[in-house]
């Protein structure tokens, strides 16, 4: 079961829960599982089937280079963070 860390600004959709535990083998499946429990979360994280612009995903504290296709392990942590650009 993946542990999804809910961004502070959408915790109103998860009854204030900071972490939600869901099933899923990819980030996309994790988001779908989250949506089934807490409707509205997917729209806040995704647009047109892709991660929203300006966001990035970290799985087990590493930036997920495959985006929504990134594999998830049973005990993975998933974070949604602002995208980073360097200088």
């Amino acid at each position, binding site marked *: 079961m993946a542990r999804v*860390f809910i*961004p*502070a*600004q*959408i915790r109103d959709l998860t009854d204030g829960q*900071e972490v939600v535990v869901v099933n899923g083998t990819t980030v996309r499946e994790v988001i779908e599982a989250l949506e089934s429990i807490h409707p509205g979360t997917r*729209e*806040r*994280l995704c*647009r047109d089937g892709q991660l*929203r*612009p*300006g966001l990035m995903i*970290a799985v087990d*504290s*590493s*930036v997920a*280079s*495959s985006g929504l296709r990134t594999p998830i392990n049973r005990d993975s*942590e998933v*974070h949604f*963070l*602002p*995208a*980073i*650009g*360097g*200088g």
Partner: protein
Amino acid sequence: MSTNGKPKYKVIGTRPIRHDGVDKVTGRAKYGADIRLSGLLHGIVLRSPHAHARIVRIDTSRAEALPGVRAVVTAADIPPQGDRMVELGEGAVNMRHLSANVLAHDKVLYKGHAVAAVAADNVHIAEDACKLIDVEYEVLEPVLDVLKAMLPDAPVLNDDVRTDVMGGSPAASDRPTNVARQIIFTKGDVQAGFATADVVLEREFRTGTVHQGYIEPHNATAMWNANGKVTVWMSTQGIFTARQQTAELMRIPVADVKVVPMEIGGGFGGKVSVYLPPVAAALSKKTGRPVKVIMDRSAVFEATGPTPASYIKIKLGVTRDGMITAGDAYLAYEAGAFPGSPIGPGCMCVFSCYDFPNARVEGYDVCVNKPRSNAYRAPGSTNAAFAIETVVDEVCQQLGIDPADFRLKNGAKEGVRRVDGPVYARIGMLETVEAIKESEHYQSKLAGPNQGRGIASGYWFNIGLKSAVTATVGYDGSVTLIEGSTDIGGSRTSIAMQLAETLGITAEQVTPSVVDTDSVGYTDVTGGSRVTFATGIAAIEAARDIQRQLVIRAAELWEVDPSTVTYVDGGVSGPDGKRMTFVELAHKLPETGGPVIGNGTSGKATQAGAFGTHCVDVEVDPETGKVQVLRYTVAQDVGTAIHPSYVEGQLQGGAVQGIGWALNEEYWYDDKGSMRNATYLDYRIPTCYDVPMIDTILVEVPDPQHPYGVRGVGEVPICPPPAAIANAIAAAAGVRMKQLPMSPPRIMSAIWERDAAK
């Protein structure tokens, strides 16, 4: 110093002469301004005299009638972009905003905003023609301050901007706003954390608008051929992102654009966005001739992305024995004309050097009538470090705790969860503090009155992204290596060294070249401290590809099964003691099938972040407020230093830029939004007279995600200087500076306030 048992390398860790060195010191290296093509026209951009105005009318007829003028373009010559976001490697970009920044649509949003451009037989005719373009403006009130821009009644820059609250908008209204984005992070129970603190400090900070200060201005030469293919020669940090931006803006296929990288005279994050290529391309399309456009220095200052000014408030709770209990940060960054300040990384970095059990961070991206902000070494992190590291120092002063010991008690380490969520892998924050604490510099005594010492730490993520490398083995045992990472800081050599190390040959046997977008696989920008890491991995993969092929060639020569042959120690070894060196085998390639070409890519690896801790001694003149930097030491977690001289150079360069940001550099605007110091005479970057030798301590904590342990090094060193210097000023003069730059007038005001309070 090395924290782990460091492997024995033959090439890595040595200091070979850079491959591009001779061309650069003899002046033969070709930069964008050196481009000469048959029939070349020269372009000049007409820029807005107003910081905020509606464009009522543009009449180019008088300019077009001037003899020698070949074309005039405005935004009407750039295809409409619609409402679309495009992924450009380092992040998604709003194409309507990018287009409006290249040539203003219906409004100008900062002084210097490009309005039109002329191509003519020479620059003088083009300049004269620009004066003949009639632009009627309806001048609007500008807003130049981040907090004023957030007010409900502030002039609004963009009609299409709403506050993005994690994919939603505030319920309050759907009105246009300057506040483009809100970010919030929380960890633990902040109120409970502050309740357990013995000391709680809250301070407010301001930082100025600062430019990257690269010496070479932006330039682009474009040739729009009759077959619809466009070639652009330019100075850029990313040939592929420049290609995509140009293609997307002109609404032509990416494959129809070729970007040829010229040598680059500095970038530091400021040469990722395109400004000139679409303009030059549009002029070339109209004329059928190549067009070269070069910015002058004022245009660089006024129209290319600086790093944002900011407002930051920090609240810090600490126990009597120096343990952090809670933190609260509020950050508002100026995005400039269009959304996109580095508020995200600013929020992620502000508490990143420490283990905060409880914290809250709130950040805002805010449009103001200044040029669209852009990346500058560790974008967003330096502003944040100035604020938090100053408060940490003041807390240490109040509690009588050595600031190095405070950091050793509270510093981030492997396993610590950041306030934004992720958990640190193996990092070297504590090692950099230990290195400073044990340094001769930190343990020495100050030499005179009005002197003070300060330390500060800083953090940057470093990124991975995608790179490609191709390497060809010559029959003489040489290797030509081609890559798509434009070389800002000696990366050609550091990439070549990793390929050489993997093949067991010398760095001098490898000839690296940075080539155009048609000649190498997709490669992301030279930025984010990624090239030596990610392009290095691609080079290692290319070397391994060569190894595999050479094993097969040797097996064919020896008439043995390939499984009995191994590549080891710079050559191939087979059964019965058979052995050929790399060079010996290279000589035999023609008789075993010809060329051996190795390919390597990198796209999955991500970096662990890097930390730096700086120590500085200053002397403050109590009569003038001038701050003289007396001594400066940088300790940084550099992973494995591939070419130590380049690593040291990055640390020194970053520190010097941070010193400039701390003491002098600032866009100076009048109340109409006109920058009054848009030349290097008035915008004062440090010179060799202003800084001492920057001593460096390379702390080597290898990143396990790279085969040789590389970490990016280019960005972290700019983060600590403003705070370290502010802390040194506090020790020297007894004043806490909370605004950058800490220029003599501000120092004197603080001293007078201090004296008045006595």
